[in-house]
């Protein structure tokens, strides 16, 4: 018994000491910071009220006048657009490419967006939407639309970033769904075909239900990306123009390292943390099933 404890400590202690000091403690400290003011006085939820009612986080006026709508709303918009698009596009591509000659090469190409540094991803988004050099403008010019730098206009900056993010992130759902399709037994399809089921019926009654566990993972990871997105916004627009493409992660950085307001930045960090933890609950649940 004693010897076993010794071994457990040998294997676990170095790793978990680092986690305790450089992950757990900072998280606790951030939570504390969010309840205190600059001079170290406990203020309850005052910081939260201040942050949530600020123009940077939720801009009520924006709902009448247009962007900026506030970082929190922008993140929600990101989720509302980016999640369904990457999810369905990934599933579509995975199913489509299954029977394409060289499909794995195409998947590798689509996956490249996931492999490059996101700071480069942000530069690429700027490049796609640039007035003179952007392929997007070259394309829409064919339809007679005036070219412009889409990331530099308040009403299109956020949407440009979100579409750029679709370009970067679809590789993830495609690759995961492709792996998921491999796990579906072939005889299920054969049986359905023998029974005369239509391709649409096979897709909705076999493929989609069998992919449920993968879908949970894809949704979780995609939501985490949408809540944490930082690099591409930092390099492409710096949240601009005039905050029109700002997001929570960037606002946290601006509060902390530009305005030197650690308490307000802590509030934003806590809001982000709570939402990411809520999102990852399904993953924790799979862990529980795993225990038996």
């Amino acid at each position: 018994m004693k010897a076993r404890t010794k071994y457990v400590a040998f294997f676990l202690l170095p790793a978990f000491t680092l986690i305790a000091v450089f992950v757990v403690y900072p998280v606790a400290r951030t939570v504390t910071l969010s309840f205190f003011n600059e001079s170290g006085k406990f203020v309850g939820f005052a910081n939260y009220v201040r942050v949530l009612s600020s123009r940077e986080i939720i801009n009520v006026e924006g709902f009448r006048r247009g962007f900026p709508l506030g970082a929190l709303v922008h993140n929600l918009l990101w989720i509302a657009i980016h999640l369904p698009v990457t999810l369905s596009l990934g599933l579509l591509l995975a199913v489509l490419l299954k029977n394409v000659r060289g499909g794995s090469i195409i998947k590798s190409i689509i996956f490249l967006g996931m492999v490059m540094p996101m700071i480069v991803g942000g530069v690429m988004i700027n490049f796609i939407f640039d007035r003179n050099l952007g392929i997007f403008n070259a394309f829409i010019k064919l339809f007679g639309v005036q070219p412009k730098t889409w990331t530099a206009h308040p009403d299109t900056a956020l949407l440009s970033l979100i579409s750029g993010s679709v370009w970067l992130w679809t590789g993830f759902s495609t690759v995961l769904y492709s792996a998921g399709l491999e796990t579906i037994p072939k005889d299920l399809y054969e049986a359905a075909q023998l029974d005369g089921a239509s391709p649409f019926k096979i897709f909705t009654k076999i493929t989609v239900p069998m992919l449920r566990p993968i879908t949970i993972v894809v949704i979780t990871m995609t939501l985490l990306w949408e809540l944490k997105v930082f690099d591409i916004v930092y390099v492409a627009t710096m949240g601009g123009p005039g905050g029109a493409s700002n997001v929570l992660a960037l606002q946290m950085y601006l509060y902390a390292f530009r305005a030197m307001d650690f308490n307000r930045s802590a509030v934003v960090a806590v809001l982000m943390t709570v939402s990411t933890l809520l999102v990852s609950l399904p993953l924790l649940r799979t862990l529980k099933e795993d225990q038996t």
Partner: protein
Amino acid sequence: MKTKTLLVSLVGWLLALIWILPFVGVFMTAIRPLDELLKGWWNFSTFRPTLNNFVGAWNHPTASLSKGMLNSLMVAVPATFLPLFLATMAGYGLSRYRFKLRTPLLALIVVALALPQQTIAVPIFQMMNALNLVDTYLGLIIVHTAWGIPWITFFMRNFFTTIPKSMEEAARIDGASDITIFFKVAFPLAMPAVGSAFALQFTWVWSDFFLALILVYSPNKLLATQRIPLMRGVYHVDWGLLSSAAIMVMVVPISVYLLLQRYYIKGMIGWSLK
């Protein structure tokens, strides 16, 4: 049936073409002089490829990429191997021993997986400041190590639970201690999983921007990713320079991906699936 397969293939390749166009564009912009770009990188009425942009970015006066890539390497190598080693040990421990704290520790690392870096940013900065480790690579390496350990531990634990214990038990009968068994039997067996974790951790540390942004600021110490935003011109965007810099910075993780593709994808799927 034949025409349908052909049609599907055609659509697939068309999509691949659309997806890769921005890469082609960046590449063309990097290898062509500015006056050719003004007509669009897709215009080939004249085509005089040059490496000037690459040389310019590599030796940039204020954001030299040669220095940046070297700096990134100096951070990424230790910040890959250190967590890899410690987390493989931890993952092994979590898979092979039953003890009271096991489930809470597992839950802790899963929770840590989801955390945004913003949650630790300010306290980490203050701690590193107190330790005199701000603006040093050691500080950044420590944070990357601590940050990488949860997911690698989780990944390695999942791997170890799938491999049978029979070989380890055979070694135990021969009188080997648990520590010897780990280093002589389990660790070598885990090489494919270690390969996956290596590919992902190295890529992520190389690609990191946020932690570097808050911890490293001296101009000569800036990492490769930090120099990208500095590559823009002051009055206008120098796309040639920026494109070649972007290519050089992404060539490293993309090479890792292409060389270790099977491990890379396995890591991505294994880590997120189970």
